[in-house]
C-alpha cells in the first residue's frame, strides 16, 4: 500500500506566490485528478512532489514518513516518476537512448544496444497502432512530431516502473486514439496498485479516468471530491474565483456596433493551428482566450508575418502574403510580443533607443535626432513611464514600466492593427489599469486590437468579443452578451460536445 500526502505546501517565485496551501492525497490503486485554471499552481505542486523545485513551507509524506527530494532522481528512487509538461528529452538521441538514459543495460564497459532496443520495443508496443510505423527504438527524437515525443516521455516514466506516476498535461498533445490507449494503460496500472496523479484541463478526460478530484485555485487547494459525486458545473464554479475583486471596470455591458472589416483571416494553418477563421472590425477589441499553448501566439505571429502559415489573411479586403515582419509593419500592423525581455526589448540600451527602434525610417537621412527625441518624450509622457530619463537603460525599469516601453515603441508607429501577445504578464495592478484605459482609448480612435491574454478576467472585462481556442482551433466565439468568466472558462476546459451539456 502506497500513500502520498502533501500538506499545506507553500512556494514563492521571486515575490509571486505560486502555491499558498497545496494539499493532495493519493493512495495506491487510485487515480487522482488535479484541476485548476491557468496559474493556479498545479504544475508547481507536481514539481515539488518530484523534487524539481523545493518547497518553502509545508510537508510531503510518503507512507506517513516525511520526505524531501532535492532532485528528480531522488524522487525516482522512491518510486515517484513524472511525465512533465515541458519535454525533457535529448532531441539528438534515439528513442531508446532517451528512455534508458543513465539506466542502460551494460555488458562490462559496453552498452548492450541490442537488449536496449529490445526493452524499448516492449515499451513501444504499449502504444502500437497509435503511432506512425517510423516510431521505432532507433528513431531520433528530433524526427518525431510532438505527440510521439510526448509518448516517449510517457514511456520514459513507465520504464522506471514507478509506484506513483504523475501525468502533468500528458494528454494535451495526444490524439484521441493515443489518449484511449493511455487510459487503458492507466487502468492496468491501477490494477497493479500504482498511484496516479493526473492533471488535465479537459473535463471529459478527468471524469473518464479520475477516482478523486482536487481543485486548486490561486495556489490553494479548495476542493476534494469523489469523482462520481461531483458535477462539472460545481467544479467550474469552484475553479472560478468569485471573491476576487474585479480590477477591470466592465463598462462594456453595451454591445458596440462595428461595420468596417479591417482584418479577415480564413482557414489559417500552421504547425500548431488547424484552420482558424475570424475577422476584426475597425475599432474592435477582439480577445483570444483559452488554456496556455493552444496556438494563440501562432495566430498573432501569422498575422504579423513572423512565422510560416498557409491560409488567407486579408487586410482591408486585400490578401497579404507576408514573408517578413517589415511587410506587416508597412501595413501599420504592430505586435507586442509575449516575452518582453527576449522579443520586446534591448535590455541594455536606453529607453529612447528602444522606443525609436521600429520608427527610425520616419526620421529620414540624415537622422533628425532632435525630432525623434521629442516624439519619444511625448510617447513616454503619455504612457507615464517612470524612469530616470530617456537615456536610462531599460534594464533599470520595473516590469510594468518596461512593458510600457514595448507598447510605446509600437504606438510610436501609430498602428491600425495592434496584436497583443499576453502583454500584462508580470505587470503590476496599477500599470494594468493604465494599460486597460489605453486600450479603450485606442479602440475609440479606431485601432483594431487582437488581444491574447492568459488572464481570463481582463478579457472578460475589456473585450467586445472573445475567441476561445483549443488544440489549434477556435472552440467557441463569445460575443459581449455571453461573455462571463464562467462561460469563458467553461469553453476553455470542455470540448465542443460537452459545452452544450455543461451550459444547459
Amino acid at each position, binding site marked *: 500500500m502506497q500513500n502520498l500526502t502533501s500538506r499545506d505546501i507553500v512556494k514563492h517565485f521571486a515575490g509571486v506566490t505560486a502555491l499558498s496551501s497545496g494539499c493532495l492525497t493519493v493512495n495506491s490503486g487510485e487515480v487522482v485528478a488535479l484541476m485548476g485554471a491557468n496559474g493556479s499552481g498545479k504544475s508547481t505542486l507536481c514539481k515539488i512532489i518530484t523534487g*524539481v523545485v523545493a518547497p518553502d513551507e509545508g510537508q510531503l509524506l510518503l507512507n506517513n514518513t516525511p520526505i524531501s527530494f532535492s*532532485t*528528480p*532522481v531522488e524522487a*525516482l528512487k522512491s518510486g515517484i516518476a513524472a511525465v512533465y509538461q515541458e*519535454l*525533457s*528529452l*535529448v*532531441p*539528438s*538521441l534515439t528513442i531508446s*537512448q532517451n528512455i534508458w*538514459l*543513465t539506466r*542502460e543495460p*551494460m555488458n562490462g*564497459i*559496453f*552498452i548492450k*544496444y541490442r537488449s536496449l532496443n529490445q526493452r524499448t520495443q516492449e515499451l513501444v508496443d504499449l502504444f502500437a497502432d497509435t503511432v506512425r510505423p517510423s516510431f521505432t527504438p532507433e528513431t*531520433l527524437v528530433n524526427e518525431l512530431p510532438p505527440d510521439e515525443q510526448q509518448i516517449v516521455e510517457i514511456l520514459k516514466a513507465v520504464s522506471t516502473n514507478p509506484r506513483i506516476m504523475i501525468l502533468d498535461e500528458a494528454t494535451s498533445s495526444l490524439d484521441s486514439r493515443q489518449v484511449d490507449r493511455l487510459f487503458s494503460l492507466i487502468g492496468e496500472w491501477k490494477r497493479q496498485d500504482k498511484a496516479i496523479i493526473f492533471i488535465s484541463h479537459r473535463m471529459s478526460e478527468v471524469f473518464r479516468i479520475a477516482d478523486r478530484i482536487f481543485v486548486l485555485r490561486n495556489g490553494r487547494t479548495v476542493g476534494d471530491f469523489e469523482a462520481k459525486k461531483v458535477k462539472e458545473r460545481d467544479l467550474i464554479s469552484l475553479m472560478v474565483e468569485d471573491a476576487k475583486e474585479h480590477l477591470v471596470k466592465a463598462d462594456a455591458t453595451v454591445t458596440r456596433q462595428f461595420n468596417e472589416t479591417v482584418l479577415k483571416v480564413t482557414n489559417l494553418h500552421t504547425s500548431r493551428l488547424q484552420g482558424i477563421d475570424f475577422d476584426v472590425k475597425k475599432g474592435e477589441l477582439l480577445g483570444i482566450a483559452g488554456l496556455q499553448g493552444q496556438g494563440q501566439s501562432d495566430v498573432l505571429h501569422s498575422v504579423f508575418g513572423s512565422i510560416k502559415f498557409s491560409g488567407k489573411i486579408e487586410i482591408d479586403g486585400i490578401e497579404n502574403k507576408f514573408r517578413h515582419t517589415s511587410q506587416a509593419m508597412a501595413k501599420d500592423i504592430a505586435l507586442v510580443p509575449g516575452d518582453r525581455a527576449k522579443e520586446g526589448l534591448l535590455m541594455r540600451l536606453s529607453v529612447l533607443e528602444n522606443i525609436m527602434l521600429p520608427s527610425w525610417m520616419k526620421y529620414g537621412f540624415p537622422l533628425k535626432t532632435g525630432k525623434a527625441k521629442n516624439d519619444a518624450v511625448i510617447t513616454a509622457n503619455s504612457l507615464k513611464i517612470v524612469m530616470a530619463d530617456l537615456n536610462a537603460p531599460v534594464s533599470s525599469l520595473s516590469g510594468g514600466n518596461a512593458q510600457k516601453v514595448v507598447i510605446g515603441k509600437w504606438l510610436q508607429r501609430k498602428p491600425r492593427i495592434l496584436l497583443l501577445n499576453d502583454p500584462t504578464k508580470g505587470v503590476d495592478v496599477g500599470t494594468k489599469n493604465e494599460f486597460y484605459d489605453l486600450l479603450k482609448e485606442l479602440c475609440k480612435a479606431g485601432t483594431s486590437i487582437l488581444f491574447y491574454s492568459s488572464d481570463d478576467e481582463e478579457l472578460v472585462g475589456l473585450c467586445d468579443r472573445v475567441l476561445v481556442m483549443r488544440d489549434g482551433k477556435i472552440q467557441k466565439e463569445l460575443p459581449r452578451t455571453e461573455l462571463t468568466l464562467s462561460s469563458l472558462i467553461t469553453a476553455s476546459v470542455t470540448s465542443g460536445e460537452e459545452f452544450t451539456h455543461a451550459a444547459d
Partner: protein
Amino acid sequence: MQQIKGFFRKKTFVFPIILFILVILTNFALQYTNLGPEKFEKRFMFLLDNNIRGFLPLILLAIAQAIVLINGSIDLSIGNLMGLVAAFLVTQYALDDSIARFLQVFIVAIGIGVLAGAFNGIFVSLVRIPPFITTYATSFVFSGIAMWILPRPGGNMPEVITTFYRTTLPLGLPMGIWIILSTMLLWLVFRNTRFGAHMYAVGGNEKASFASGVSVIRHRMLVHMIAGLIAAFAALALVLVTGSSDPRIGGTMTLDSVVAVVLGGTPMIGGIGGVVGPIFGVMTLGFVRNIVGFANVDTWVQPLVDALIILVALASPSFIRLILKQVRS
C-alpha cells in the same frame, strides 16, 4: 530518399570522406611526377607517409576538439596546451637521452596535459564560466608558461626515438596511419561505453540529461581532462617530427582544429557528430593547403586561396540543402 537522408544525417563522416578522396586524388595528380620514378602504389604511399606525419598533431587536436564540441563545450586553449607540453618535452634531455628518460618525461607530460584539462574543466563546469571565455583565457596561461620554459625556438629530442618514429613501417604502412587506425578503433570502443553515450546526451540537452540523472558537472570536467590528455599526445606527435619546438607553435592550430571538426561534419551545436569525420577533415585541410602550394600560386596569396577553398567546403552542405529546399517548394 528519406532513408538516404537519414543515413547522411546519422553517418556524419560520409561527406568528409568523399571530400577527402577528391582532395587527395587532386593532390596526387598534381604532385605525381615529383614523387620519384617508382611504381604507382609506392608513389602514393610516399605521399601519404610524407603528409600524415605532418598532419598527425592537428589530427589529434581535432579529435580532442570534437569530443569537447560534442559535449556542448569548446576548448580554445587546446593548441597552446599542446605548445606547452611540447616545450616541456624538448627541454628535458640535457644529460641523459636514454629511452628510459624519455618514458619518464612523457609520463610527466601526460600528467601536465590532464592537469591543464582539469584546470579548464573546473572553470567551465564547476564555476560555470562560458567555455569560450574560460579556454580563451587559459590559452594565454598555457602559452605564457610555454614561453617561460622555452623562451625561443629550440630544444631537442632523443635521436633514437625520432628515427624510430620516422623510419618504422609496420606491415609496410607508415606509423601515422597505424596511429590513426588505432585512434578510430579506440573511438569505436569509447562511444559504446556509458560515458561516451552520455557525452552526446549532455551535449544534446544539458537540462534533460541532468533531470535524467547524468552528473553533468563531473562529466564535462572529465571530457576536458580527456582533451588535455589527447593534447599531450599531439605534442609528442609534433616534437617527434620536428625534433625541437617553438613556444608559439600551438596558437594557430586551435582554430584549425575547430575548422577541421566542422569540415569533418561535426557541428558546433553539441550532441551530434563523431571523430572519424574530423580526422578526414584535418587531412582534407592539409591536402588543400598542399595543392595550393603546388599550384604555382603566389606565396602571398596562398592563405587567401586556401581560406576560400575551405570556406566553400564548409558551406557546401548548407548550400546543397538550400538548393534542394528551393527545388522542392
